[in-house]
C-alpha cells in the first residue's frame, strides 16, 4: 500500500479543511481527486507530501508514518503544484543543479541533460527562469520534481494557468510518468484532463472523499453528471 490514510483531520485554526478523510491507494496506481474550490484538495496533497502536519488521524505514505517520519519520506516524494518552486534568477540548469544537489542525485550532469531533453527545454537551459513562459516553467518544474526519480508523485492542479499547447505537452510528459511502478496522486477540477490517464477516481467535497471508483467502472460520458450530483448534494446537506 503506497498511501493509507485513516480519519485525517486538518485544522487551520478552528476551520477543518479536512474532516475525517480516509483513503487508500495501492502501489503504482494513479489516483485523480476531483473537487470544487475549497474542498481541501490542496490541503490533502500538502499533508501527504509532508508540507504540513496532520492535526489528527493516521497517515502513512510510502511506508513512512507522518508526521514523525516525514524526513525519511521526502527523499521518495516529488511534488508538482501550480507553484513551480523555481528560482527566477537562476537558469534552468542552475535550478536543476541546485535541487539535484539537495537530493544528492548521482551523475547529476547527465540526469539534468536527459530530463531537459524530455521536457523539451534543452535549447533554453542557460536562460533565466524569469524569462520563461508559464508553460515552460511548469515543464521545468516537472523536471525538477523528477530529478531524484521519486516513487510517489503528487500533482496539485498542474494544468492551472497553462494554454492548450502547454497542457498537451504537460499531458504527454505525465503519461510517461505513469509506468506502473510510480504511485501518482493528482488533484484537478477539470474532468476531461483528470479522467484521461488515471486508474482510480475520487471526488472530494468539504474535506472528505465522497466518491471512490476504479476508472474502468465509470461511465466517462456520464461522469460529469455524477460529479455535479455529489458536489451539489453536499451543498444542499451542509448549507
Amino acid at each position, binding site marked *: 500500500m503506497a498511501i493509507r490514510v485513516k480519519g485525517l*483531520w486538518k*485544522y*487551520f*485554526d*478552528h*476551520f*477543518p479543511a479536512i*474532516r*475525517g*478523510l*480516509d*483513503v487508500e491507494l495501492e502501489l503504482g496506481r494513479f489516483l485523480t481527486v476531483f473537487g470544487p474550490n475549497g474542498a481541501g484538495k490542496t490541503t490533502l496533497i500538502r499533508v501527504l507530501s509532508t508540507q504540513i502536519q496532520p*492535526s*489528527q488521524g493516521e497517515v502513512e505514505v510510502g511506508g513512512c508514518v507522518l508526521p514523525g517520519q516525514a524526513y525519511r519520506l521526502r527523499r521518495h516524494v516529488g511534488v508538482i503544484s501550480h507553484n513551480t518552486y523555481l528560482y527566477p534568477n537562476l537558469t534552468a540548469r542552475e535550478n536543476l543543479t541546485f535541487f539535484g544537489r539537495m537530493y544528492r542525485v548521482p551523475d547529476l550532469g547527465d540526469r539534468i541533460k536527459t530530463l531537459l531533453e524530455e521536457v523539451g527545454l534543452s535549447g533554453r537551459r542557460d536562460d533565466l527562469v524569469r524569462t520563461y513562459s508559464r508553460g515552460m516553467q511548469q515543464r521545468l518544474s516537472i523536471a525538477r520534481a523528477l530529478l531524484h526519480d521519486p516513487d510517489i508523485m503528487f500533482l496539485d492542479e498542474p494544468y492551472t494557468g497553462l494554454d492548450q499547447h502547454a497542457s498537451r505537452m504537460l499531458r504527454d510528459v505525465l503519461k510517461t510518468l505513469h509506468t506502473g511502478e510510480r504511485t501518482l496522486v493528482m488533484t484537478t477540477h477539470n474532468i476531461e484532463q483528470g479522467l484521461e490517464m488515471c486508474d482510480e477516481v*475520487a471526488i472530494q467535497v*468539504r474535506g*472528505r*472523499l*465522497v*466518491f*471512490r471508483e476504479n476508472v474502468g467502472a465509470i461511465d466517462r460520458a456520464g461522469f460529469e453528471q455524477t460529479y455535479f450530483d455529489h458536489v451539489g448534494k453536499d451543498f444542499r*446537506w*451542509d448549507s
Partner: protein
Amino acid sequence: MTTVSRGSSVEHDTQAAVAGGGSSGGGATTATAVHPTGAERPLWLDVLGVAAIASVLVALYGAIIWAPTEAVMGHVQRIFYFHMPSAWVALGPAFTIVFICSIVYLVKKDLRYDRIAGASAELGVLFTTITLLTGPLWAKPIWGAYWTWDPRLTTTLVLWFIYVAYLMLRSSITEGHRRARLSAVFGIVGWIDVPIVFMSIRWWRTIHPTLVTGEGMNLDSSMQAVLVFALGAISLLYVYLLVVRVRQLDMGSRIDRLRQQSHLR
C-alpha cells in the same frame, strides 16, 4: 466511501466546544474545564481577586501612612514600595513564564500554553511600563535627572522593547498555531538575551563613571516590612490578573470555535 452523517459529527464537536475543551487545535473532544460554559467564575478566583486587591490596598496604606519617611530622600521614596515590586514581577516571573510556556508549547503543541505566554507577556509589559514611569519620577527629585543610563534602568528599557515587540508580533498573526509557533521562537530568543543585555550594559556603564547608583539606600525594619508586603501584594495581583486573562483567552478561543462550527452547519 465515507458516508458518515455530517450533522452528528459537527454537533458532537459543538458539545465539546461548549463544554470547554482545553486544547482547540487538535479537534479532539478533550473536555477538561470543570465549568460548563467557562463563563462563570469559580469561587476560588473571586477569593484570589479579593485577596489580591485587599493586599494591594493594605500595601498602599503601609507605603503612604505606616512606613516612616526616609531620612535622605524624603516622601518621594514612597514610590519605591510599588516601583520595585513591579520591576520584580515583570522581570522575574512574568517574562520567565513567557519563556517556559513558549518551550512547553513547542513541545506539546497545546495552545493553552501559548495563551498563558501571551497573557504573561502582556502583564509583564504592563508592570515594566509602571516601573519605567515611576522610576524617573522618583529619580528626578533625588538625582536631579529623570533618566540615567544606569544598567538596571537601561536593561529594563531594552526588555520593555523586547516584550512590546513580542506583543506586536502576536497581534500581527491571526492564525492560532502559527502565532503560537512564531511568538514562541521569539519569546525564547528574547528571554535568553536578557542576561546578556544586562551584562553588556553593566560593562558599558563601568567604563564611564556612574553618576548615581540605586544602591546605598538604608531601609529600616518597618520599611523592609512594607516592601516585602508590597512585593507579595503585587505578585498576588499578577497571579490573579494572569488567571483572569488566561481564562479570557480560553473563552475567546472557544467562541472562535463555536462561531466556526455555526458557519459549518
